[in-house]
């Protein structure tokens, strides 16, 4: 039976993690994600779990590294400057093939930046969340229900592929309150973790969690194998489309920007412009094929994002620049208005006609 609860986005993430069987949360406060930690601090002790406030984001991600090494579902959450500090640990986790869930409720940057919503960590999340050759799964919710659902899914994917999975939200999604059906969280599967460090009990050979390979050939082979796995992960790439069937101008937007874009698309349709929305739900793997297919029919693309233009590169790459791609963006914590998006749609349609 559907059980709807009114929740903040950040709380939905925390509740979903608990329902997915996560009993180990390590964090450090930073706006605008602190409710995740506060929720965990309240719930975890009652569930027989751990909420531990680390001395830094660096320590928190390394505690996740330790807990994940022990085979349990572990999680940390932060916002932009804190994610930068976690990048060392993320790279080590990738090098050791450890699963975990990481939340980034983005704020404006660079530096201390601001605390208002932003999407300016897209490159960091999808291109380089640390040194070395590796990827993370990056999921982008656009409402509170999805913050819940995708968090549960993130734990499943992380275990399935032995990778870190990131929920990439923004300050606005973190703070917004919406009804959530939390009955969907129960179906947590359990992958066997025979690699985990639980003590040999004299029953098996020792397990080692490690990312050091001094032989270049061996390391290359491992990286190649990991990229074979990534090729398999490509199949989880997905989008959520709105009015794309006949669309001539396609908006590509994720997170809160996608919700704003929908309003603008409705307005554009009233004015006779065939506009539609492709919303990538997975940012890595990026839904390249879905965009390539759309480019066969569409005349132009408009990318709406709260950064100086980061996801636009993935859109251009996916369609191999076969159509004009326009950018409609705000930065520093500013949120694009539906009017500005409508104007961008009109301009793109106009440019196509002339």
């Amino acid at each position, binding site marked *: 039976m559907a059980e709807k609860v009114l929740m903040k986005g950040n709380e939905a993430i925390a509740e979903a993690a608990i329902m997915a069987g996560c009993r180990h949360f390590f964090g450090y406060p930073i706006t605008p994600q602190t409710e995740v930690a506060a929720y965990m601090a309240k719930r975890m002790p009652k569930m027989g779990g*751990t909420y*531990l406030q680390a001395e830094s984001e660096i*320590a928190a991600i390394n505690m*996740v590294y330790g807990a994940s090494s022990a085979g349990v579902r572990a999680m940390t959450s932060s916002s932009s400057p804190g994610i930068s500090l976690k990048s060392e*640990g993320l790279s080590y986790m990738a090098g050791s093939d450890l699963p975990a869930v990481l939340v980034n409720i983005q704020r404006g940057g660079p530096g201390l930046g601001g605390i208002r919503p932003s999407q300016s960590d897209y490159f960091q999340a999808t291109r380089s969340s640390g040194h070395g050759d590796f990827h993370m799964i990056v999921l982008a919710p656009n409402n509170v229900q999805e913050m819940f659902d995708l968090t549960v899914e993130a734990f499943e994917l992380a275990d399935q592929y032995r990778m870190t999975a990131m929920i990439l939200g923004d300050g606005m999604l973190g703070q917004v309150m919406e009804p959530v059906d939390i009955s969907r969280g129960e179906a947590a599967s359990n992958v066997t973790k025979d690699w985990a460090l639980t*003590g*040999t009990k004299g029953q098996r050979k020792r397990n*080692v969690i490690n990312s050091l390979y001094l032989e270049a050939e061996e390391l290359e082979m491992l990286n190649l194998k990991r990229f074979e796995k990534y090729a398999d992960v490509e199949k989880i790439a997905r989008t959520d489309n709105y009015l794309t069937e006949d669309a001539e101008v396609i908006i590509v937007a994720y997170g809160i920007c996608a919700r704003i874009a929908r309003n603008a698309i409705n307005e554009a349709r009233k004015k006779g412009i065939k506009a539609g929305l492709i919303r990538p739900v997975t940012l890595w793997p990026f839904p390249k094929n879905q965009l390539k297919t759309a480019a066969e029919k569409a005349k132009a693309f408009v990318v709406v994002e709260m950064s100086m233009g980061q996801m636009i590169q993935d859109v251009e790459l996916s369609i191999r620049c076969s159509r004009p791609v326009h950018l409609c963006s705000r930065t520093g914590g500013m949120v694009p208005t539906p009017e500005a998006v409508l104007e961008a749609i009109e301009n793109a349609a106009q440019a196509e006609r002339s």
Partner: protein
Amino acid sequence: MEIVFQRPKALSDVSSHYCPGCTHGIIHRLVAEVLDELDLTGKTVGVAPVGCAVLAYNYFECDMAQAAHGRAPAVATGLKRANPANIVFTYQGDGDLAAIGTAETIHAAARGENITIIFVNNAIYGMTGGQMAPTTIPGQITQTSPYGRDPKYAGFPLKVCETLSTIDGTAYAERVSVDSVKNVINAKKAIKKAFEYQIAGKGFTIVEVLSTCSTNWGLEPVEALTWLRENLIPYYPLGVYKDKEVF
């Protein structure tokens, strides 16, 4: 014939990569003997550092994790919190623990994290080729203190046991040395006590072991032991700095 001496079971049957005369080998052996004597190997998870002991995961016959530079106490925290029934130890050098990992060490102690740290203080960065460590003593010549460490310029060495003994969460902190048979025996006693305290759930335990780096000190192995005795011990006095049971 009666066997009177053999490799501890907790130590793998492989040759180590440590330089001839390096006391890392002795310290490994002591930890392994203690694991054997307390019958802990099957329930122990060790954490290897970044530094000469990075390959410790090849040498201890228990489950092992390799941590980023300095982060071993945080990794150990995660391991212990996930599975409190496991015995968790880290094995760290002075660059690892007292420079890049200072925060992780102090806060693991402050939380009274029920883990054991084996802290190998050789007053230098071994693996990267002999640079100044936070524990390099005044006047000591290293690659990056070529005129001898001048505290006015490079600051003072960190005294780890003294510092950690002021923290309430520290259950046991002792500094030992492996320069002589007597001291080696004493070092083993300290390591055993630290693990026993962890088994009893008493909290954070650390054994600081003064160790040699003959290679980077530029001394013959025996000279290195003498240098340790004559220079490191006076600066870093041996003894128990914190024992929750006693004071």
